[in-house]
């Protein structure tokens, strides 16, 4: 058994997910403690170009499984490729992102490898005995448990996106190892025929690191444009959300609804514009790391959960906000 650390670098349609870099960052720290090396595993089709992007984050090796069958994510195909590779190299630790596909993939991989899995972790470290300690929130975040996998190997964990920072990039290059994938199309019981997307290249709300959300105070569908502009100013990882009443009034599409009956989100920054903050809405976003509320009504319940509150007309504040964000981004 080695003491190496592996991470799965997740990509979708030729773009690496941010959590892949977060994984490299923590993976490097863990590998330093275990005294092993860090490797990344990249699966997909025509993904050679992506390996360069993974360079410089501490991985000494990148395994590339490039196959037509892996072009789209499939539970069966990805599981087989990963399991074969893990069995051949026996890493001590295998990490992935707790994304939609990660949550689908990792339980099956763990079952095939007959090992343990800590899902949806918010912190990872190595204890004095050299074991992986995975910190997981339970009961809606009221308690944190440390999960250990004492005997079975590899020790597997899924990391919740947006929890750990993306590390500084260095200059070292990783060695590329292409891996032949022994998969036939008939090995997949389900194949993807078509991906139907909602208009635009929006990112999934539950994975966004910044959410600019509008409520009934937006007054019209057109006015949501200023929220889109603010989200755009934040750049990649930012998305526009909406409250139920905004969705009901047709200001925003249903898949952007945040709240008890919509999506439960957990971004680093949640900007609530013209949202009074009914409990149904709060139930979907109260665990956001920072909450900024802009509302005319100082009595609005949203201010009870907000870290920063602005009592003013959102149509005045949001454009100013957008300008300031642009300025700050320009300085970067």
């Amino acid at each position, binding site marked *: 058994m080695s003491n190496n650390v592996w991470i799965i670098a997740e990509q979708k349609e030729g773009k690496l997910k941010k959590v892949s870099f977060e994984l490299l960052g923590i993976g490097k720290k863990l590998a330093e403690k275990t005294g092993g090396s860090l490797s990344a595993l990249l699966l997909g089709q025509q993904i050679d170009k992506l390996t360069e992007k993974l360079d410089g984050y501490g991985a000494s090796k990148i395994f590339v499984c490039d196959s037509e069958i892996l072009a789209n994510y499939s539970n069966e195909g990805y599981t087989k490729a990963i399991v074969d590779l893990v069995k051949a190299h026996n890493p001590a630790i295998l990490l992935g992102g707790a994304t939609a596909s990660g949550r689908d993939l990792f339980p099956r991989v763990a079952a095939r490898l007959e090992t343990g899995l800590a899902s949806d972790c918010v912190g990872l470290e190595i204890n004095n005995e050299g074991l992986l300690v995975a910190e997981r929130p339970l009961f809606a975040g*009221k308690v944190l448990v440390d999960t250990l996998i004492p005997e079975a190997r590899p020790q597997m964990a899924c990391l919740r996106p947006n929890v750990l920072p993306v590390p500084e990039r260095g200059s070292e290059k990783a060695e590329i190892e292409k891996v032949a994938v022994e998969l036939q199309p008939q090995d997949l019981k389900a194949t993807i025929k078509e991906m139907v997307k909602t208009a635009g290249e929006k990112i999934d709300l539950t994975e966004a690191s910044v959410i600019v959300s509008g409520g*009934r105070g937006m007054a019209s569908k057109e006015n949501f444009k200023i929220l889109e502009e603010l989200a755009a100013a934040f750049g990649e990882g930012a998305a526009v959300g909406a409250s139920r009443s905004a969705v009901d009034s047709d200001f925003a599409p249903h898949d952007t609804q945040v709240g*008890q*009956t919509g999506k439960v989100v957990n971004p680093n920054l949640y900007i609530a514009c013209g949202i009074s903050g009914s*409990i*149904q809405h709060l*139930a979907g976003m*109260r665990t956001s790391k920072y909450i900024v509320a802009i509302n005319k009504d100082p009595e609005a319940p949203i201010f009870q959960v907000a870290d920063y509150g602005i009592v003013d007309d959102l149509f005045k504040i949001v454009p100013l906000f957008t300008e300031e964000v642009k300025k700050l981004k320009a300085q970067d």
Partner: protein
Amino acid sequence: MEITREIFWNVGHWVRWPVYGFGLIVIIIFIFGLVKRIRLWRIGKPENRLDNIPRRIGALLSFGLFHRRILKEPYPGITHLCLFWGFLILLLGTILIFIQEDLTKLIFGKVFIQGNFYLFFSLVLDLFGLLAIIGVILLAFRRYVLKPDRLDNKPEDLIGLILIFLVLLTGFFNEGLRIAITRPDFEKYSFVGWEISKLFASPERSMASLGGLHATFWWIHLLLAFGFIGYVAYSRLLHLITSPLNQFFISFAPSGEVKPIPDIENQETFGVSKLQDFTWKQLLDADACTRCGRCQDNCPAHLSEKPLSPKKVIQDLKNYLTSQGKNLGKGEDAEEQTPPISGNVISEDELWACTTCGACQQACPVFVEVIDKVVDLRRYLVLMESKFSPEVKLFFKNMETNYNPWTIGFATRADWAKDLDLNILSEKSDVDYLLFVGCAGSFDERNKKVTRSLVGLLQKAGVSFGILGAEEMCCGETVRRIGNEYLAQILMQQNIELFTKYGIKKIITFCPHCFNTFKNEYHQFDGNYQVFHHTEFLWNLFKEGKLRWKTGVEMTAVYHDSCYLGRHNNIYDAPRRLLASIQNTRLVEMEQTREKSFCCGAGGGRMWMEETLGTRINHMRIDQAASCDASVVATACPYCLTMLEDGIKEKEMENLLTVFDLAELLEKAS
């Protein structure tokens, strides 16, 4: 001349025997049909509906004989009353004649329908016969000319009406022809027959020709009457039997009580998937329904264009019962293969659309129960198939982990009271009352204001009370109505353990849902308490002089009845009296008020589901409130408060209407 009439006059006494033979056959046909239905009801599980017989007879008399519920709608009510009593009196008349002819006359040679009694008998029978004819004509007019939406017409309706009409008409023609031939003066007491006789009384017509006509009518009348009896058990006329039965087997349990799944730990199936899972009374309900449609006229889901109509649900069950009846006794395999009722006979959308407001049951003249069936069928979906919307999944999860509907930690449940010097029972339990705050009152910013107002009033009145603090859990009401009986029982039993631990006997709550479940359901798990809704409790304090309003509030207010306070628990007056007690406050009423109140749309778990079909129920209620020139809508329920306030915002009517809980208004006034 003797004042009486000869039975079997003109047709010959020999007909007695064929008539009785015929009658026997018809009665056998009737009994055969009835027994077939009874056997269908008996596939259901046992249920005791034979307790308290005197009260049951009382219900039968008042709701059956005297139409107490049916008369709530004057046109169909009075017309049906005419038809009903007309038929009943004619039936009694026929029975009297039978007794005379076959008992007293045959055995003792005594004829008692004679003299003054004969005149009275003739007058009464003609009068009620006429009422019945008027009734049947007006009912047909309503059904086929006025065509109210709630009536669907089937051939059996027309056949039934025509049969009744012809039986009555031929009866009167019989009488008229007999009088035309015999012409005794005293027959003017048979005033309908007397008038008809004038049609035939002409010198040109010979006695022979009229005699033949009379005999023909007599036979037609007889055959139609027998046909009617035979038809009863095979058509909607069965309600002659089943509706009174259902009124007799009325439920004495509070309408807000949902029955538990007993011994839930050892059950292998939950809820209702096939007809056999219902009780016999639930199956009788299906046969007692007359398709009158009053339920759907009062159903908020139906009126807001959801796929649910209580009438359709009951009728679908009835038709399913009839069709499944054919498979009975074909062995267990056939039964095993029947698809579950939920999703096949009654669609899932129908089941989830119900707000359990109880308006359908309140309107039903024959006491068909609907909520119990909806909950049983939901239980199957939830507990056996895990079929419910994603919103409900989150709701259940939150209830399981945090004992409240939202993703909020249970430890923060009493944070609202941090700055109020309140007794927490874990620290001090020798108080008179428990104030059960409820989830909305504990966590929802808007409803926390209500809690604070109520606490202020209770403190002002010097009431000794405490709260459970972070130990309090959801009462389980909504979880139960969504069908998750398992989780509901866990919550209920945990609360009961807490109540027992602190020796709680009296509970005050401002949520009618908590109130209803403590009052009507906790006894199922040996939790017996005296439960007060805050409107009742505050009214008592006011009456005792412990609360007084100093300033009053200048406003025109309309009170919105919560279903679980009003319809399910009969508390209509306390909140209105409280409102009226505030100085300078004018109280107005919506058109749909008290028993006829319109749901806010949140009951039965609807609060936690998206309302994607039809019009929003809360919007409809707002329109009703807005049309009565009030500026304040007073509520007494956190669900209603939330729904109405949301509706007002969505309809952008904030300038016209504001919603307050009664406690808030009273605090303002004091």
